[in-house]
């Protein structure tokens, strides 16, 4: 079919006909600055949109969470019990730690798909370092520390590979995930190591004030993550790099170094998450991290962390974590089929991303 040059459609009128002399309508409802010349107010207005988008997004996430809570509470009496609250927090613990970690990577504007592999390798590692059914190790907390360190090494490696070899993080971390699964499978060696360390098993079982030890560890980890984001160079620079990598580089900051460090921080949180999963399962499992990458990214995005970087943070991601957990919990309590639940989660993440980029959609340009 030859490209026809004449548009056959009847000439539809251009929508807002510009009125001579009338003040230019502010670009998209943000114009509270006095209208000077229409052309030049457009630029500051755009900056304002993104500023507002930040606040709007956080509120939107909170409101969405509120709506979920209200709806489920209205439908299910079981939902509105203290016991269920404790259950939700316990169920959110692992995801909260992982989402805290991945937030640092997403702030950069990068992506991290290494989570399943890193968790697999770390889960096998910790189960073989603490008292277990396979060997005579009994390193206890030291084993936990080493595992967190291993997670950090994985992250650093992803970061260094991405920055030094200039491979997209999408690809390096996907490869890193496969490497992690490979290592985990070798460590697994055919028989599952059962965790015999009482202290570690107690993470999932013993309760303080009705909350599992794991919930409290998660809260402490999230607080640490928030502190890293707020007070350390790696945290601040991660956000700055996401906001304008070239500018940060032009200021003389070694962008590659802080990118790698941000991946390292993320990896350390994955390591802790792997320990928590292992405590919950009571044994080392290769697939301990399956699906958690999607859940962690979903949580961060629902909370308002922008995949293009520079926006969001640990606390915002936590809104997403709680929202996802409440959703799963509520869907179960209201009797929705588990088969449908996953589809619902998928729909929600796409919607969340659409809402998040809506205010800035004109500036995104080519979407890949």
């Amino acid at each position, binding site marked *: 079919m030859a490209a026809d040059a004449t548009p056959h459609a009847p000439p539809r009128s251009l929508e807002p006909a510009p009125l001579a002399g009338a003040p230019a309508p502010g670009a998209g409802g943000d114009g509270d600055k006095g209208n000077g010349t*229409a052309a030049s107010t457009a630029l500051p207005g755009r*900056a*304002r949109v993104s500023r507002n988008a930040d606040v709007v997004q956080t509120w939107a996430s909170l409101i969405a969470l509120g709506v979920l809570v209200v709806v489920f509470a209205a439908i299910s009496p079981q939902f509105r019990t203290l016991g269920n609250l404790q259950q939700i927090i316990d169920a959110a613990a692992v995801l909260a730690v992982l989402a805290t970690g991945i937030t640092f990577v997403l702030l950069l504007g990068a992506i991290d798909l290494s989570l399943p592999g890193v968790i697999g390798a770390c889960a096998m590692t910790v189960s073989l370092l603490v008292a277990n059914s396979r060997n005579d190790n009994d390193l206890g907390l030291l084993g936990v520390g080493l595992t967190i360190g291993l997670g950090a090494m994985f992250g650093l490696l992803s970061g260094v590979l991405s920055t030094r070899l200039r491979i997209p993080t999408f690809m390096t971390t996907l490869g890193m995930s496969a490497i992690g699964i490979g290592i985990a499978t070798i460590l697994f060696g055919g028989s599952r190591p059962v965790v015999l360390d009482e202290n570690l098993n107690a993470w999932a079982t013993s309760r303080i004030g009705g909350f599992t030890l794991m919930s409290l560890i998660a809260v402490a980890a999230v607080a640490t993550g928030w502190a890293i984001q707020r007070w350390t160079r790696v945290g601040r620079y991660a956000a700055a790099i996401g906001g304008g990598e070239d500018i940060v580089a032009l200021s003389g900051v070694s962008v590659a170094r802080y990118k790698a460090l941000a991946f390292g921080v993320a990896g350390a949180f994955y390591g802790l998450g792997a320990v928590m999963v292992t405590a919950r399962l009571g044994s080392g499992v290769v697939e301990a991290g399956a699906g958690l990458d999607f859940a962690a990214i979903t949580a961060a995005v629902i909370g308002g962390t922008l995949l293009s970087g520079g926006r969001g943070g640990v606390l915002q991601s936590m809104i997403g974590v709680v929202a996802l957990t409440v959703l799963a919990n509520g869907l179960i309590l209201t009797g929705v089929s588990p088969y449908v639940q996953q589809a619902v989660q998928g729909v929600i993440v796409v919607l969340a991303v659409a809402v998040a980029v809506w205010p800035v959609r004109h500036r995104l340009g080519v979407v890949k």
Partner: protein
Amino acid sequence: MDDDTGTSTPAPVLAVRGLTKRYPGVLALDGMDLEVRPHEVVGLIGENGAGKSTLLKSLVGLARPDAGSIAVRGETVRLRGVAHAASVGIGMVFQEQSLVPNITVAENIMLGSEGAGVRGGLFRWKRMAELAQVQLDKIGSAVSPRARTDSLTFAQRQMVEVAKVLALEERTAHEPVVLLDEPTSVLERDEVETLFAQVRRLRERASVVFVSHRLDEVLEISDRVYVLRNGRVVAEVNPAEVDATDLHHLLIGRESTHSHYHDDAQQEAAGEVRLSVRDLQTAGCDKVSFEIHVGEVLGVAGVQGSGREELCRALFGAVPRARGQVLLDGKRVKLDSPRGAVLAGIGYVPSERRTEGVVSAMSVKENLSMAHVGAVCRGPMIDGRREHDLVDKWVSRLGIRTPSGDTRIGTLSGGNQQKVVLARWMISDHLRLLILDHPTRGLDVGAKSEVYELIRELAASGCAVLLLSDTLEEALAMSHRVLVMKDGQVTACLDAPRGAKPDPVAIMEAMV
């Protein structure tokens, strides 16, 4: 450093000698000599391509000169990058805003050199704010260091950038040299006044290099002005002794009009109107109205920020939220997508050839048939033979030097790539208007001449052409009429018939 009010010339803070930088096909700096003395504002003016931006880049270590030297306080330096330049006391306020929007003002000012603001790896926010406040106080800015940067107006951000550059002082133990690259291009008149007040204050503690397209501003603020042309300094003037007209003459130079514009091929334009634009309104363009006739080349002249780039992108439907009435052969065209523009018979040759003009990993063939794949299709499938024939026809017709249609276009020279881009639009029988955004940018003289010839042919065949030129000379030589834009508005429209081209000075006066 001593305050110098005497008549003797003080030793320069910054001395550039014989600086030369060659890019492929372009001699960007051709033995440039200039110096900056303590506590003075040096103005730099020149047309696009005169070498201003390459000079500035060399001064902050973003470009490595091929020859010549840069001396700071008498010591020759080879600058390795922005951080290195900063360590010897040279800082630049970049033309495009160089602040990270999503962090605080204090962080931006201190970025990369937090000093006492970070201790033991931890940010001390109070200390950061105090340190940043010191810099903000130097220029008397009322911006809060704790404010998020994207909550500021453009003028405020420009001040923060200056404060950021001033923070250099703390690191060098010398008074810095501050390079301001087009700092006023996004500012309103009253904001410019504020900036100028700050620049005068800045002069007390630093030397300033001020680059602007706006001559009146350069004359107003500078103590000395260098006029650049073709990569060298062609004049050093005292602003008190010259007026804008003198500068216009210096800017344009005397050598001009070459036969490579194919002047004789300029034909009379037909009477009927091809494109009529009324009150086009978009970011950077304010109520622009004009017409182009069948077979006419309309040049659009203007400096950076004049809105002419925005104008041509808007006409091609590539700018969101453009409004206005656009009639093509009397029919309304919606400005909502490039697709719509192509269907209406509009073609666009973008200025960024490598990123927007060609897909360098694809073949000449694919690049050529890209916009009108329909022409080589049989049903839903691309007909290989038809495509092949079409490409062969155009390759020989335009003299595109390529081994074959299957060659990767990225391996061809710039001129041949550009000819493919032109052919992409010329293959359509329905082409009514071709928008050329800097079609000869980065091409050598021979390739330029060939492109000019093609433009003449196109116009002769009845196509209307909207031409944004690299140089004023090119716009004048190629166009039937020249539209002059300034600050988003049309300030003049001059006839440029063959043999009676208008005086470039008149156009320059309407531009700046």
